[in-house]
C-alpha cells in the first residue's frame, strides 16, 4: 500500500513516517502543499494522510484540487483545528475521515485500514466485517465461506449496516435504502431488522439497537 504523507512539522513528519512504515505501508513524505499537489497530479497512491495547516498551498486547497481532477483515493485529514466548522468543511471538501491532533497511532492505523478496506470493497463489490462477507452484485451474504439464507430485504439491511460499520444507521436511512421498487415504512424496517437480527444471533453476531437513534454493527465483529 502506497501512502502519501503530507505534514510540515519535521518532528511529527518523521515519527509518522516511521510509524506508518512499521505498520507496513510504503510512505512518501512531502512537507509543502504545492509540492504535494504536484506529486498527486502525476503519481498514483492508495491513500493520502493530509495535514491542513501547510506552507505554500493549504491542505484544504490540495484536497479540493485533488477531487477536482476526479481522483477518488481515500484522504484522511490531520487537523489541529477542532472547531465543528473546520471538521464539516474538511468532510465537505471531499475528505473521507479526519483525526484531531494529537492522536493515537492505533487510531490512525485503524482509520487508515478502514478507509483502504472500504475503497477496495467498493471496487470489488464485496463488503467485509469479521467473518461476514457480502457480495453486493449477487445479493448474497456469507459467514466465512458458507452462504447465509437471507431474504432480499434482509440483505438490503445488512448491506447498509456493513457499509457503515461502527456507525449508527437510522430507521429513516434504512427505509430510504430499501425503498427502491416500493415505499417501505419505518415499521416494516423494524420487522426486517428483527428477522435479520435473529438469523445473525444464531451465528454469534449482534445488531446493536440505540433507542431513538437506530442500529449499528460493531467495528470489531468476531
Amino acid at each position: 500500500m502506497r501512502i502519501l504523507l503530507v505534514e510540515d512539522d519535521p518532528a511529527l513528519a518523521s515519527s509518522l513516517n516511521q510509524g506508518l512504515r512499521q505498520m507496513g505501508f510504503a510512505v512518501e513524505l512531502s512537507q509543502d502543499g504545492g509540492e504535494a499537489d504536484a506529486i498527486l497530479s502525476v503519481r498514483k497512491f492508495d491513500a493520502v494522510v493530509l495535514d491542513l495547516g501547510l506552507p505554500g498551498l493549504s491542505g484544504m486547497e490540495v484536497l479540493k484540487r485533488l477531487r477536482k481532477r476526479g481522483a477518488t483515493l481515500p484522504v484522511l485529514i490531520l487537523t489541529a483545528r477542532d472547531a465543528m466548522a473546520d471538521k464539516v468543511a474538511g468532510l465537505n471538501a471531499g475528505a473521507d475521515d479526519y483525526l484531531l491532533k494529537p492522536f493515537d497511532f492505533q487510531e490512525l492505523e485503524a482509520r487508515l485500514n478502514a478507509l483502504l478496506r472500504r475503497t477496495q470493497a467498493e471496487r470489488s463489490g464485496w463488503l467485509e466485517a469479521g467473518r461476514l462477507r457480502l457480495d453486493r452484485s449477487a445479493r448474497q451474504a456469507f459467514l466465512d465461506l458458507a452462504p447465509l439464507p437471507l431474504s432480499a430485504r434482509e440483505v438490503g439491511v445488512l448491506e447498509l449496516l456493513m457499509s457503515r460499520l461502527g456507525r449508527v444507521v437510522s430507521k429513516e436511512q434504512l427505509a430510504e435504502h430499501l425503498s427502491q421498487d416500493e415505499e417501505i415504512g419505518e415499521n416494516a424496517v423494524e420487522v426486517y431488522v428483527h428477522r435479520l437480527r435473529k438469523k445473525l444471533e444464531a451465528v454469534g453476531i449482534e445488531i446493536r439497537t440505540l433507542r431513538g437513534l437506530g442500529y449499528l454493527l460493531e467495528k470489531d465483529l468476531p
Partner: protein
Amino acid sequence: MTAAGGAKRYSLRRLLLSRLLVFLLPLVVLTLIGAFFATYHYINEAFDRSLARRAYALADQVEVRDGRVEMDLPQSAHDILEFDPTDVLYYRVIGPNGEPLAGTDDLLLPAESLTQPTRKATFYDSEVEGEPVRVAAYLLSLGGTSANGNVLILAGETRDKRSRLVEEVIAAMLLPMLMVIGLMAYGVSLGVDMSLKPIQALRKAISERSPQDLRPIGMPAIPNEIEPLLTEMNRLMTDVGALHDSSRHFLADAAHQLRTPLAALKAQTELTLRSARDESTRASLKGLLSTLDRQSHLIGQLLALSRAESAAKAVEFQPLDLVQLARDVAADWAPRALEQGIDLAFDAGHDKVWVRGDRNSLMEALSNLLDNALRYCRPGDSVTVVVGRDEREAHLSVADTGPGVGENELDKLFNRFYRVPGTQIEGCGLGLAIVKQIAQTHGGDARAQAGRDGHGLDVSLHLPLTET
C-alpha cells in the same frame, strides 16, 4: 427615554419644525393684526363720509330770514334724519349766539370748539347714555360780518353698523388666513421630512445588516451633511471586521501551534513505547502519554471556550431543527458509548423543535454534555438525550444514571475550572462553562439538576423558540 450611552435624546425633525414655526408664526400674527387695522380704518372712513353728508343736508335747511337765523325742518325730513334700521341717529344745530335751533342736546359738543368755518366736516367720538357715538361736526358760515355768524351742525350715530361690518370682514378674512397657516405648516413639515429622508434610509441600511456583514455600507445618494458620518461608520466597521478576523486567526493559529508539537511528542512517545522492552521504561512512557492526553484535552477546551466567547456577537444565527441536530450528534457519540458498555438513547417529544442559532456552537455544546456524561458513567449506566419544548422555550438535555453530584454542587458545575471535590475522573472543569457560554450566546441558559429518582445528573440547555 434615553439613547444608548445615556445621552439626552431629541428629534432633529421636531427641532427643525419648531425653529421654522417660531419664526413663521409671529409673521402670520403680525399680518393678521395689520389687516384688522386697515379694515377698521377704511370702514370707518366710509361711514364717516355718509355721516358728513347728513350734516351737509342739515346745513342746507338753515336759512337767514329778516336777520334771524332759522331752521325749517319738516316732519318728514325729521323722520328721515332720525330713521335707521340698526343705529340710533342724533342731530343738533346751534345758532350764532349759542341758541339751539334744532335737535337734541344729548349730543355733546366737540372737545375743542370750532371757530373757523371749514369746507368739510370734522369727526370725533362721543357718548350718549353710555353708548359710543360717532359725530360729524360742521361749522356753517352765514356769510355775515359778525365773527359769531356761524351755525354749528352736529350729526351723530351709534356704532353698531360699523362694528358689525368690521366683524363680518374679519370673519371672512379669518378662514382663508387659517387655511394659509395650515398649508404653510404642512408644507414646512413636508419639506423637513423630505430633507430627513437620507437619515431614514441610512438607519434602514444599518438595521438590515447582519452582524457578520462588515462590508462598507453604500448609499445611492447621500447629502454632504451625512456623508462624513457614513464614512466614519464604514471605517469603524472595517476596523471591527479586521479585529474580528485577527482574533479568529489567532485562535486557529494558537490551536495549530499548540497541538502540532503535542502530536509530534505523542507520536514519538508511542514509537518509543512500541520498541521499549524494559517494564519501568514502559510505565513511565505510558504516564507521559496520559499527561499528553490531559494536556491536549485542556488545550481543546480552552480554545473552545474562547471560541464560544468570541463568536458571541459575530455569529449569524439561522433557524435550525434541534431534534435533527441532537440526533446527528448523539449518533456520532454512539460508538464510544457502546465501547464503554453504556446504553445511549435519544428521545424527542416533538417531530421538530425550531430554534435560531449557530449549528456548530450548538453541536459543540451537546458534544460537551455527552463527553461529560460518558466520562463519569460506568458500564451498565445509561445516558439519554432528550429534546422537547413547551410554550416558551426549547430544551435539550443529557440525563445520565451515573454518580451524580451533591445538591449544593449543582450551581457551581458551570464555573470555570470547577471540579467536584473528590472526583477521580480526569477532566479540566471547562466543559460545562463552555455549554453555559454557548447557551447564553443564544439568549438561553444552562441548568443542572439531579436525575430522575435523585440518581445521576441531568444537564439541560434552554433556548428561545422560533416560529418556522
